[in-house]
Every structure is written in C-alpha cells, then in structure tokens.
C-alpha cells in the first residue's frame, strides 16, 4: 500500500502577473478539498525564506509540497531547501505552474485548478490533459509562403498529401528571397531558396494561391473549413510568360516591395525575376486603369501578345476543407521611423537592414554596389529625390547599429535573435566590397550563439570591422555630413564622428495581420504579439487549438535553420496525424472535469 503523502499546497501570489485573472481564493478552497492535502498556505512573499518555510513544514509535517503560482520555479529552490532543512525529501516539491500550462489566458481559474489537481496527484499536466482523438481530413493548409511555409508544404507534399498554400503577396519566397547572403556560411540566399520555390510551384500535391488571404475558419481539429479570398491578380498566371512587354509601357509606379522600397516598380509587375508563380500581377492601387475606374490607360492589355491580362478580373472566394492548418506568416521588420533619434526617414543615408540587403544584393537596384543615395531629378514627379544608383559615390564610413526596436522597453522588449548575425554579415560585405571603407558595429551583446556563428564573428573581427560595444544614441546631420553619437563603452569614450551610411539593424515584429488571423484561428498571442505556443519546452510549435500549428518566426524571432527545423517539425506532426488518422482535439476545450477524468485514467 502506498503511503499517503501529507501534502501542503502553497499558493504564491507574488509574480502572479499574467495570471492576474486567476482567483486565488477559489483556488485555495478547491485545493483544500483535494485528497492528501492537509493544508493550503497562501504565500505573499516574493522571496520566501527557506528557514521559516522549513520550520512550517516541520511543524505541519508535510511530506510533500505543491507550489502553485504563475511561475513557481522561482520559488522552487527555496522550498527544496526548506524541505531538506525540515528533514523531508526535496524530491517531493511539485510545481503547479499556471503560465506553463496555459492558465495565462481568460477562464484561467478552472485551468489553474486542474493544474493544481494534477500536481497534487503527482501526474504531469500534459499526461492528464489529453484530449479525445478525432479523425483527420488528409488535406493541409499552409498560411504563408516564406521559407517556413515552403519547407512545411514540401515535406507534406513529399508524403503524397495534398497541401494548399496561401500567400499574401504575389510570389512565395518571403523575406528570405530578398536576402543577399545568409549567415554564417555566406551562401547566396537565392541559390538555395529558388530551387525550393520552383519545387513548390511544380509539385502536383501543392495548390498554390498567391495574392490570397484567409478570410474565415470554422470547424474543429481535424476538420476545418477555410474560406480563402484569392485576390485578383488581373494577369492570368498560366498564360503569362513574364516577357515584361506590359510593364515597359505601364505608367503606374509604386515602391518595389521586393526591393524593400529602395526603388520603384510598375503597377503591372513581377515581384522579382525568379518569382513563383513566374507571372506578372497588377497592383490595383497603382494601376491607372483601376484607379480611374476603367476610364484611362489599359495599354498593357494591348501589349500582351498572350492576352493574359484581364483588367476587370474579380476576387475569387474559395472554400476548402482541411485537417490541419500550419501558420507560417513570418514577420515584418520594426519601423525605424519610430526611433526618431536615428533619423530614419529624415536622413537619406540612414537605411534599414532589409534595404541594405537589397542594396548589396547582386540582383538589387545597384547591382550589389554599396553606395550612398544621391539627389536625382524625378521627371514624373518633377522633384528632386534621394535615390540609389549603381554609380553613386561609395560610403567611406559605414555604421551598423544593432538592436533597433529590440531589447527596448520603449519598443519591443524581446531580442530579435537574428540581428547580431546579419549585422556581422553586413559588415563582412562592406569590408569585402569596399575595402577602403571603415565599418563600425555598435552592439550591446554580440549574440553569436549558433553553429559556426562565433567563428564567423571572429572572422569578421579579423577582417578589420570595428566592433564597438554600445548602442549609439543618435545620428545627426550638419553641413551635409552625418555624424553619429554614441558611447564606446570598452574604449571609454563618447564618440562623435562622421559617417556616410548608417544601417539600422531593425528587429522583427509580428505582421500587422497577426491579430486578425489569431482571432480567425482562435489561437492566442503572447504579450509581444507573437502567436503563443502550447508549451515552451515540450510543444514549441503546437497551439492550444488542435490541428493548428506554428512554424517559424510567427511564433517568435528565429533564424533560418531554426525556422526550417520548426517547419519540418509541424510537417511531421501533420503527416503523423494523417497517417494514424487521429489527432487530439483542442486543449482549450478541456474542462476541469475532463482533466480530472484524465487523471483518473492515468492512475
């Protein structure tokens, strides 16, 4: 016969930030009724003293202690010490973590009760909180056509299963397609990505809808009905041969999204030459025909020998049924205008990381020459504009400033994880392409944590890049010369020196649509706006909702290998569910009674 362990439950109020919605009083009442619980202690101290807690344990003769809190791990060592001081086994300190087990959101008191219940029974929450199995529709929807989405779609299609891929823009490829080189190997982004893009386009198991958006989701795990709006490209994808005849005469212009806005594209355009689908589309905001209500222009139609252009095409709404949904919506970069002191948007030669990627990319508007902007007369608008040109003067001093919008409580608190390394890559490219230029990196912590990253850091350092610890404070212009002010912490100086080109290593942010999509899908977002995973350690790509998974940066900043690994992971889970034709239902539908049931089954 197993000895009943006298259990003391400590409900700690301190640090109950996110779970402020948990009713601690009700929780205490509930806990008191649980078997083997001899006492519930409500503990307010943020730093309980092990000695006094130990005395209490000895007094009450607890054999086991359950710490229930938002993040009870903060108190665990104190309790372990208290147990050992009281002569009890420190092994018997059990954590009941609200946040770790999904009791951070609303309706959390019930969940918190379940968490305590599991902890008191000594059963991991994940085991008890298992859901009913449901059968699975074999098709899958992938939202987002960046490298994460591509990887996931190809893996699933490789298993012979049908995949729908919905991409917001006119081409798949995402941000990675814009990059020049990838760190730390410096291999060319296009070389490794475009073959995958082409495979997506050619795979018969993948239905690719670009320029499309998810408009509605209904149903439940294993069987979701999704409404997709296929926005009118106005150019027939199948017929277009990307001959470029149409865009030559097109009068409409807009900043090129693919070139991060550093040059213009036409209203009828192909995002980039290797776009998949390799077809033009019309930007209705810039198209004269559309904006004039069909009154003006329309020259492109005449130019198209394949008669592929249908200016009056309409959006199409399609409805599909899928068993699994993979969210791989990626990120947008921080809007550097918000940090006024760096002068982005005001000073022409302060540019963001993505702009630099295009600037240094051989297929970018300057053919890969790193140059400064110069004033050029725009005939159409009849104004002087600051633009990049392949033959513009080259900068002599280039400053790269890390952590723009990241690690900053005024903006995004989190670290964007990739900026240090991409900044080092930028510096390397500066040194490589402009051997005479000085290149400065201003950083706070150099986060070179991945495989071969540290080696890359040292290589860049050896190449003569000045690594300056200290994020700079401001960029100012006087007499046509930009000056940068910052502290060189290790050198013990305040710097004030001339720079010609400033690259802001902007952080990663959730895409603006993420809020809407989260509510469509019924999944949670964390306080920074990233989609919330089900369990940080155990289930970094799952959501509380069954059959909906996260891949890549939409769950939190990530570099390419980590994104790809996650994408393969979710693909694995999708294939698994289809193969076994069963999947767990959404966890957020579990009631306390369900979990108590589950506990009984475990025992």
């Amino acid at each position, binding site marked *: 016969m197993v000895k009943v362990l006298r259990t003391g439950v400590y409900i700690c109020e301190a640090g109950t930030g996110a779970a402020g919605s948990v009713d601690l009083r009700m929780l205490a009442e509930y806990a008191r009724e649980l078997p083997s619980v001899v006492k519930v202690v409500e503990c307010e101290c943020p730093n309980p003293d092990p000695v006094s807690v130990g005395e209490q344990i000895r007094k009450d003769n607890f054999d086991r202690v359950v710490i229930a809190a938002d993040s009870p791990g903060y108190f665990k060592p104190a309790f372990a010490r208290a147990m050992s001081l009281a002569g009890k086994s420190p092994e018997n300190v059990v954590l009941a973590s609200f946040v770790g087990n999904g009791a951070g959101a609303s309706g959390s008191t019930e969940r918190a009760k379940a968490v305590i219940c599991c902890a008191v029974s000594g059963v991991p929450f994940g085991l008890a909180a298992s859901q009913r199995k449901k059968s699975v529709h074999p098709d899958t929807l992938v939202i987002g056509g960046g490298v994460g989405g591509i990887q996931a779609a190809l893996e699933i299609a490789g298993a012979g299963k049908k995949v729908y891929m919905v991409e917001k823009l006119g081409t798949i490829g995402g941000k990675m397609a814009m990059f020049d080189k990838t760190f730390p190997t410096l291999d060319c982004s296009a070389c490794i990505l475009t073959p995958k893009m082409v495979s997506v386009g050619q795979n018969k198991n993948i239905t690719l809808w670009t320029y499309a958006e998810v408009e509605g989701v209904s149903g439940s795990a294993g069987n979701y009905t999704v409404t997709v709006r296929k926005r009118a490209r106005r150019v027939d994808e199948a017929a277009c041969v990307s001959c470029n005849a149409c865009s030559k005469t097109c009068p409409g212009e807009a900043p090129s999204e693919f070139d991060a806005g550093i040059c213009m594209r036409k209203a009828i355009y192909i995002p980039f030459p290797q776009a998949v689908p390799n077809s033009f589309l019309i930007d209705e905001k810039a198209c004269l025909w559309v904006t004039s209500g069909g009154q003006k222009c329309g020259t492109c139609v005449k130019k198209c020998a394949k008669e592929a252009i249908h200016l009056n095409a309409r959006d199409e709404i399609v409805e599909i049924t899928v068993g699994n949904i993979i969210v791989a919506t990626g990120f947008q970069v921080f809007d550097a205008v918000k940090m006024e002191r760096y002068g982005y948007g005001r000073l022409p030669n302060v540019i963001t990381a993505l702009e630099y990627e295009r600037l240094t990319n051989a297929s970018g508007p300057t053919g890969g020459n790193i140059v400064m902007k110069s004033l050029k007369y725009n005939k159409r608008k009849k104004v002087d504009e600051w633009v990049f040109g392949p033959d513009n003067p080259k900068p002599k001093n280039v400053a790269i400033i890390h952590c723009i919008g990241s690690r900053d409580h005024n903006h995004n608190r989190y670290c964007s994880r990739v900026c240090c390394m991409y900044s080092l890559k930028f510096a390397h490219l500066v040194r490589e392409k402009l051997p005479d230029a000085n290149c400065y990196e201003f950083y706070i912590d150099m986060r070179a944590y991945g495989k071969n990253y540290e080696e890359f850091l040292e290589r860049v350092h050896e190449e003569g890049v*000045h690594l300056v610890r200290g994020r700079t*404070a401001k960029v100012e212009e006087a007499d046509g010369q930009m000056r940068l002010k910052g502290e060189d912490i290790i*050198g013990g100086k305040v*710097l004030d020196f001339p720079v010609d080109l400033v690259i802001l290593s902007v952080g990663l942010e959730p895409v603006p649509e993420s809020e809407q999509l989260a509510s469509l899908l019924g999944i949670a977002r964390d306080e920074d706006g990233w989609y919330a995973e089900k369990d940080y350690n155990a289930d970094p790509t799952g959501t509380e909702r069954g059959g909906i998974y996260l891949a890549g940066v939409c769950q939190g900043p990530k570099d390419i290998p980590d994104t790809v690994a996650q994408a393969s992971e979710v693909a694995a889970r999708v294939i698994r569910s289809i193969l076994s034709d069963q999947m767990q239902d959404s966890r957020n539908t579990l009631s306390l009674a369900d979990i108590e049931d589950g506990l009984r089954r475990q025992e």
Partner: protein
Amino acid sequence: MAVRANPNLLKQLKRYGADDVTKCFHCGTCSATCPLSQEPFLFPRKSMRYLQMGLGDRLKGNLEPWLCYYCGDCSDQCPREAQPGETMMSMRRWLTAKYDFTGLSMLFYESRTAEVAAIIVVGILSGIGFYLLGALSGGDFGSYPGFIPGHNAEYLTELGWDVKSVVLVMAVFVLGLLGINVLRMWWFTTGSRKDLNVPFDIYMKHILLCPWHFFTQKRYSECDKKKPWVVHIILMLGFVALFAVFLAHMIWQDDTHAHTYLGPLAGVMLVGASSFALSGRLNKTEAHYKYSHHSDMNFLYMCLFVGLTGLAQHIAGRIGCGAFANFMYILHMMGAVPMLLIQLPFTKWAHLVYRPHAMYFAAIQADVIAGREGAKGASAVPHKQSA
C-alpha cells in the same frame, strides 16, 4: 589597482532612490544621449556601473552626478527603464550624505521620519523663538510689521541681542558646515587624487566658475530640454530675490523697495516654480518627475510653504490684517529656518553649494587631464578592441 566589489552599497543606495539601477545592461544610450556628457566626464552609465558593482570609493570621488541636471532624456530613452537620471539623482543624495561629516545628512536621507521630525522640531522651536522675540521686544501681535524684530531694534539692543548677530550665528553655523563639507568634497574628488596633482594657478584660473554656475545654471541650459532649466532658474532666482530682500532688510534696513516689490515677486516665483514642480512630481508628468524621494517632496513642500506664507504675510500686511500677517510671518519663519538649518546643509538644498563647486572642480580636472594628454582629438573614433 583592483577595487573590491561590495554588495552593501547597492542596498544602501536603494534607500536614496536608486531602485532601478540593476536593470541597466549598459548599452550606452544614456551617456551618448546626454549633451552634457563629454570627456573626460562620461555619465551616467559609468557611475551606474560603479553603483551596481558597489565601488563606493569610485563613487565617492566621482563628480559626475553633480554634472547632471536631470533633464530626463536618458531615462526616456533607456531601453530597460533603468532610470539613469533618477539614479544620478540618488547618487547626488548619497554624495551629499557622504560629504557631510556630521552624519545627520545620512540620517535625514535614509529616514523620512528623521527628516520630517527634524523639520518639525526646528520649525516649532523657531516659531516659539520668533514669537517670543516679537513679544519680548514689545511688539504688538496685531500690528504689522511692528511685531517683526528689527522694526523695533532699539529694544533688542537693550536686551543685548542683535538680530544681526542672531543671523550671523546662524550663517556661521550653516556656512561653516557647508564649508567643511565642501572641503571634504574637494578632498574626495580632487584633493586626494594623486594622479591629478593640480597646480595652484589652475585653481585660480577657474575660480569664477563657482558664482557663474551658481547664478546662471548655464550648464542646465545646455540640456536638450529647456523647460526644466526655466523652472529651476525661476525657483533659484526666487531664492536669490528673497535673499536680497533679506539682506536689504538686515543690512541697509531698506524695507520699502525690497519689501514692496522684490519680496512679492520672489514669493510669486517661488510659489509658481515649486507648485509647478510639485504638481509635476505628484502627477509624474515628466521623466525627471517620475520618481520622488522624500527629500525632494519635503523640499518642495517647504518651498511652497515658505513662499505661500511669505506672500500671505505680505498681502495681509498690505490690506491691514496685522494679526494674520504676523501669524503668517511666524509660520513663514517656521518654514524658512528649518529650510536653512536642515535642508540647506544636510539634504536637498545642499546642492546649491555642491553643484557649482562640482563644476569648478570638474573644470580643474578637465584642464589638468587635457593638459596632460596633450591635444587629443575632440571627435574620437572608436578604439579597436584587441582581437
């Protein structure tokens, strides 16, 4: 020379208001943002570093906290909400306590009760004193300004008391205290530093900086934000004006001009500036008003109190409410004396002495260092780390 890290300094400084300093992760934004932070005095980051690590000696010999006027830009821009501006403020409080050899300053700063109690005790004592002074000199509590000592000086002289000598005793006491503390400050920051070895002529060269900074607060005006400077200078000029009124009253016995015009003006300045600052602090309107130590609040309350009672005394006197004017006068003195005896030498107000001296010493140090290092380029380029 190696220095020893000390965990207690941080604990101590927390009592002076440095609550957030551990949040700082040293990105350098603050030092570079600050227009006042120039070589060889780079702050606030480095001072914060000393504080985090508990390098008390480094901090004690540090002039940098005084070079900061707390415009709050650094706190606004700090990515970690480590409140560098407030930390500098705390360090000024701590330094004031350190300079004070009596230990009273430390007591007042570390204990709100102690400061309040001291103010109340001195206030009550001085209230009783001034009442007695007025009453004993035969002043009629209903007549104004007749009740006020000095308006019937003859009687006092007969008593063997001279108001001037009372004032003189007080002044010697306060100035003596401050003088000793300034000397201590000099010793901590400049005198004891063997590496400096300042020649006498450099001391003379910059001596005028002290009054210059005292009166103009020129340096405050160099902050990017100008409003705090304006508020501060109004407050400061209010005190100067009051002091002028006082001097005029005491030395030249000229009551009419000073009292009629300058007094009310000073009162209005004082009341205006201090109530602006107080409301700012209560509503936490600006970065430098977000965090208030009890010494800040006490000082502002006292300023407001002294200003308001002074004004009330004046107006009441004008409209002929003599008793009320005299009552206000007593209250006024109950505020003014503790300010002079407690806050001026020991707490918040002491900065009026330390800050100009800090500018002075800083100029001396900068001069010495610049002279030693020769013509070092002004616009520094980042140094290169060892690979």
